[in-house]
Every structure is written in C-alpha cells, then in structure tokens.
C-alpha cells in the first residue's frame, strides 16, 4: 500500500465492509442534500465513488479551552462502526484525546504530522483560545495556546473551528470572560476558516466540510459568520418538528404540565429556536430520531449563537422576526359577491320587457288620440258641450 492510500484502499485494507461505507455516504447525503457539491444531486453510489477515489485527508486536531465535547460528538455515534468509519475515512494524525502518546512523544508526533503534510492538512481546532496575560492561561508544551495555534495554522491548508468555543469563544467567553477567550477567527486571518458552532455541533457537519474540501477541492458556501450554509442557513424554528404546535397555539407553560408531556411547543418556556441558526431540527444526534434537546422536552438554548446562549436568560422568550410575511393571509378587504350570467340576462330581459311595453303603450296613447277616442277636456263648460251637440244635430 502506498504511503497515502485512497480512502477506498484504506477501507478495504482495514476490513471495513463496503456496505457500511455506502451507509455512511447515505448519511452524508442526508446531512447535506443541498449546499455541498459533494452530495448535491448525486446518488449514494456516486458519492461513494467520489469519496473512494480521494486520498485520505490528513487532519490535525488541536484542543484548547475545550470540554472535549466536540470530539465526543464525533465518537458518540449509535453504531460503533460509524465512529470507526469516520476515523478510517479521515486520517487523524494528531488528536490528544484519542492518540496513545503523551508528553514528549505527543509533541514529537505533532511535529512529524505537521512536517509530513505541510500545506495539505486540515487543522481542526476545538476549544477557545485565551488571550489575557499574553495567552498564558493555557499552555501546550510550555507554549501559550495562541502561539501554538499560529504556528500550526500557518502550515495548514484550511482551518475548521469546531464547536462554539473555537468559533466565537463559547463557554469560556461567557461573562465575565476572565481569560479573554476568543474564537479562532479572531487570531488567524490568513487562512480559510470554517466555523462550526454548536455545543456540540452535529458530527456530520464536520464530515461534510472535510470531505467536500478534500474530494471537491473547495470549502462549502458560507455565511457572513463563516458558517457553512448547508448546516447553518436556517433557524431551528423553521424546521422544528414541533412547529405545528407553535402555529396552532399549543404551548407547554411549565415543565411536566400537560402540554409538556404531550410534546407541545416549548416557546413559552424560553426556547431560542426562532433565533438560533443550526440544523438540529432536521439532523438529530446519535443517529436516533428525537435525540436532541427539543425532542427531549428541553427548550433550545441557542448554543450556536454568540448573542443568545450566554446572553439571554434561560427562560426568556425571544422575539420572532419575519422579514417578509408570506402571502397566505387574507387581505384587509376580500372580494365578495359576483354576477351570474343567468341573473344578468334575466334582469336585462325584465328591464327590456318593461321598457318595451311602456314604449308600445305610450305610442297607443298617441294613436288612440288620433282615432278620436273619447277624451274629456278639462275646463269645458257644459253649456258649450250642449251647444256643440246642438250644432251637430243641426
């Protein structure tokens, strides 16, 4: 086998069944039906073929101020094969939690990983980076985290900031932020950075971005906060499975009440779904349906959003903004009433008939007059009438 085998070669050598691999590709398509050129308008086999031809990407994973949750999300899949699969598809050349080495051996591993794949590896950063006190709140091998990041990132091809901590600071950056924790893009400015906020984010977000990059050679389309649109374009509220309850006005008003038990909308309990960009509504966790906060009856806290999760109160309701209201509302004045042909014809006929009859009879007044019908003139004196008759007789 070559030093840098393709993914298909490696899987075969590792004994991973093709069926499992194709299933993984299927899950990848489900992750991003649109927004990733890798999966867009492709069949499963096409995706499998594309990925299979790709050389295993080298991934270096750095941990800073993290809880390792983002690593866990990668590993906590329901089917153990999938976790292995992910680790077989990507070549995780340095990962402090997963690798066996520690201490000086770990440092050496990092140096050799960087040297072997310089300019080609994808740097995944987990955790925020402290900036106060010259960044000495966290050190990696006696070097401040910020320095490590700069050195490693300089040699990487692209940086993926996984988790809210790496994206914008996350938990450590919550008020009062004593360590001055910031996200990756506050430090690195000269490399393409993809932010994958979430606490933790869905692992398929990471997989989709990495494979898109190595297979198609480009990063997916991103929004103004550097988040890939295929996963972060919409808010939770838009695709929430409980949306029908929201629309019908069925809300849980207290934990454990009837509405809560029936699975009604959690908006009144402070769900931040309407203002949180993430794909959790459609992609749940651990490949189990409803395995996500709202599915479990817990209102969304908005973990991807810097302005939401540690800024708003847990039970504080959020305003719901609609940029353009849809058109399925009745207008202020609706059209009502109409004319039927039959009725119009009938009315016309009646009007015409009456008008015609009036005209005809009015004409007969004229002719009856000409024919000398009896009329009694007003003002004629009887004496005159008698005189007239006398004259006639005569």
């Amino acid at each position, binding site marked *: 086998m070559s030093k840098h085998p393709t993914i298909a070669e490696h899987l075969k050598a590792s004994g991973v069944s093709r069926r499992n691999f194709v299933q993984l590709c299927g899950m990848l398509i489900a992750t991003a039906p649109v927004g990733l050129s890798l999966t867009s308008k492709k069949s499963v086999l096409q995706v499998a073929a594309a990925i299979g031809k790709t050389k295993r990407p080298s991934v270096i994973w750095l941990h800073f101020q993290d809880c390792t949750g983002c690593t866990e999300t990668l590993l906590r899949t329901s089917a153990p094969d999938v976790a292995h699969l992910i680790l077989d598809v990507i070549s995780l050349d340095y990962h402090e939690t997963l690798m066996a080495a520690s201490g000086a051996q770990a440092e050496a591993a990092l140096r050799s990983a960087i040297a072997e794949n310089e300019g080609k590896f994808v740097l995944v950063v987990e955790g925020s980076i402290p900036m106060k006190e010259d960044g000495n709140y966290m050190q990696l091998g006696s070097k401040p985290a910020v320095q490590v990041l700069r050195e490693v990132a300089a040699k990487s091809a692209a940086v993926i900031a996984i988790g809210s901590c790496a994206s914008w600071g996350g938990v450590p950056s919550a008020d009062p932020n004593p360590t001055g924790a910031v996200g990756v893009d506050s430090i690195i400015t000269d490399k393409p950075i993809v932010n994958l906020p979430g606490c933790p984010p869905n692992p398929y977000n990471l997989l989709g971005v990495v494979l898109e990059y190595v297979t198609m050679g480009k990063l997916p389309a991103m929004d103004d906060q550097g988040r890939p649109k295929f996963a972060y374009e919409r808010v939770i509220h838009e695709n929430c499975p409980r949306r029908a309850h929201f629309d019908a006005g069925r809300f849980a008003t207290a934990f454990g009440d009837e509405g809560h038990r029936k699975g009604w909308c959690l908006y009144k309990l402070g769900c931040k779904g309407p203002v949180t960009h993430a794909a959790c509504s459609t992609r749940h966790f651990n490949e189990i349906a409803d395995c996500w906060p709202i599915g479990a009856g817990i209102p969304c806290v908005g973990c991807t959003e810097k302005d939401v999760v540690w800024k708003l109160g847990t039970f504080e309701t959020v305003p719901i903004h609609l940029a353009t209201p849809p058109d399925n509302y009745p207008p202020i004045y609706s059209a009502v009433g109409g004319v039927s042909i039959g009725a119009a014809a009938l009315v016309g006929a009646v009007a015409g008939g009456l008008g015609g009859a009036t005209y005809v009879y009015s004409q007969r007044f004229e002719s009856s007059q000409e024919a000398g019908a009896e009329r009694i003139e007003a003002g004629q004196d*009887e004496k005159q009438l008698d005189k007239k008759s006398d004259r006639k007789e005569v």
Partner: protein
Amino acid sequence: MSTASLSNRPFGATKPPAADTKPRWERAVPVYGVSVITPFFIALAGLAILSLFLTVYREVVGLGPASGMNDKFGWGIWKTFNVVVLTAWGSGAFAVGVVAWVFGRKRLFPLMRMALLTSMLAYACGLCLLGVDVGRPWNFYWVVLPWHWNLHSPMAEIAICMSVYASIPLFLENIPPILERLWHVNVNWQPAIERVEHGLHKFFPIIVAAAYLLPAMHQSSLGALMLLAGQRVHPLWQTPFLPLLYVGAATFMSFACVAGTTMLCCLVWKRAMDMEVLDEAARISAWTIFGWLAIRNLDLLFRGSLFSAFHFTRYAGIFWTETFLIGYGGWLLLQSLKNHKTQTMFVGYALCSLGGMLYRFSPTTLAYMPGPHAMYFPSAIEVLIALGFASIGIALFLVMVKLLAILPASNQEWRNMAAYYKARKPAISRNKYLGFFGHNELSLSDKRSH
C-alpha cells in the same frame, strides 16, 4: 265619488243623458266584458306559482343559495326593491289620499279607489316578500309586544308601522268596494251590509287619519334606514334629509303609479279619460317633483356634496340619470297640461316613476359602498321570486279591477254595464263569480233606501 259641478245645474238629471254629451269620471265602474283569464294573466300566474316554489326552496336551504346576498351586502332586491321601491310606488293611498282628503282637492276623489287598491296590493306583496326575506320570521310576533321595541331603530318602526298599516287602516279602506259588490249580489244581505258601511263611515276619519299618518312615518323611516350606514352611502345620497326626501319621492312616485295606471287601464279597456282629474294630478305631481328636486339639490349644495356630481364616476352617472328622469318627467307633465296630450302625460309619469325608483333604490344598493372588492347582483332565483311576488300583485289587480268597482268612469258607463249584464243574465247566473250582479237585476231604482 262625484266631482264638483262646474255650474249649479244638476248634471244628468233623472233621465238618461243625451248620447253625445261628454261624461266625466263620476263613479267607479268595474271592467266588464273582459275575461279574467287572459294570456297575460296566465303568464303572471305562472310566474307567481314558480316564485312560490322557489320560496319553498329558499326556506329550506337558506338565503345564501337562493339569493345573491353576501356578508357585505346583507340586503338584496327583496328588501331594497320590492319593499323600499315598490311600496313607495304603490303608496297612492297615502299621497293621493292626503291631497284629496286632507288638503281637500276634491277633483282627485275619482282616483281614490285605484290608489287604495294599488297600495293594498303593493303593501301586501311587499310585506309577504319581507316575510320571505327575513331569516327568522318565527320571531316576527315581537311586532305586537311593545316591551322590546327599540324606538331608536328605523327598522323597528318600519316593521311595526307597515304591518299595522297594511292590516288595519289600508285593509279597512279597501273594504267598501267589496261591500258594495256584496250589496248587489243578494238583496237579503243588504241590511247587514249597510250596518257595516254605516260603521265604517262613522269611524272613517279615525281610520283614514291613521292611514295617512302611518305611511308618512314608515316611508320616512325607510329613508332613515340608510342613515346608519353613514359614510358608506355616497355623499350624493347620504343626507340627514333622507327621510324627508324619501317621503317626497313616494309622493310623486305614487301619483305616477295611480294616475299612470289609471290612464293605462283606460287605454287598454277603452274607457274615457277625465282630463280635469288627470290634469289636476299632473299639476300636483309636477310641482311636487320640482319642489323635491329643489330640496334635494339645495341640500347637496349647502352640504358641499354637489361637486361630486361633476366627477366622472358611476355615482355621478346614476345621480344625473335620476335627476334627468325625474326632472324631465316633471317637465313633460307640465307640457301635457299645455299640449293636452295624454301620451306626454303618460311618458312623463313613466319617467318620473323610473327616476323615483332609481332614487329610492340607490342609497341601499347602487350608492352603498361597504368596502373595496365587494359587489352584489341578485341571483336568478332572487330575481324570479321578486318578479313572482310583483306578478301576484298585478294579477290580483287585474282580477279586482274586473270584479269590483275600482276604475273611474261616468255614470253612463255604469248604466252601460248594467245593460250589458242584463242582456247576458242567463250566462251570469251560471258564472256568478264573474258576473257583477247575481240574483239582483240592476235598474235605475236599485237603491234600497236613502
């Protein structure tokens, strides 16, 4: 029903007058020698029966499928035409009656029976159709229970007043021709009939005063109805004077109805027309029309609404049509006084009737603007029912005018009729209901007492 003589010489005396002396309208004479069942009558009866079937349909399925009424136009032609327009056109008992009996224009007396009959039929048909139009007629009994009368409401006033008027004073006013006929049918009934007649004469002022007061009230309330619609009635019609203008319109319209119908009947059944009476009616109508036009237009002017008549809108079009029809009709009536042409008079009456109908109809429908995109047009069933009920009125009129003494004519005409029936006596005893005089034979000495 005698007119004031032009001289003191008794007219006609006790012997039949010379054949070539011009008669006047001295009494009402039934239309004789004409069958009741004519093609026109059959057509009317057919329409009437059709409308009765359609009425059953309306009662079963509801007002929606049977009419073109909708949420924005809650009133259809049954209310706005058959009640608002036709009862005004047929309010001759009120208008002609007031002029003749209150203002003492005796020349109009010969027209009274025509006025009374047309009014009775117009109101009866209108009220029956009103019963068809309302959605919950079983609650109509509240008309006679005063404790829930809403005196604010013009609708209450109309419902109560029209019902009372049609069922009591108007009905009683129409009884004399029936009693008269019964008096001639059987000698034995005459004492009883004369007692009833005597009673009616005694209470005549009380009944008739009500018969003039009540229509004044409800014809004006028909106008007050649309006051509540406020800005939704176009400013060319909406005015606080609407009740007054509605009564005025009813006045000249009903004159047109009574005089015009009488003229038409005389034409069709070849009766002589007494121009002294008709000229008087025409003169009164014409001056009522001009007075009415003056009030209406001055009101528009002083309220500052007249300008909208000069915009190119359909409302301005309707306004000018009304004004032209009414004004030109009135002018023709005046012309007919000068040129002595009955045609001019008839056309004048026809035009001002049409104009008056348009005026009374407009604020309820044509000039009623409940909102953009709302429109109303009667459905075919609605038109047929309206026509049918009007046909019932016309058909009944045709029957009554032949059965009873309604249409005015000369005393000579009465004698001609008597001679006609005398000659056909054997035939009449077989067809008693068509003949005027059953067992009794008319002679010049047919009065029993006096």
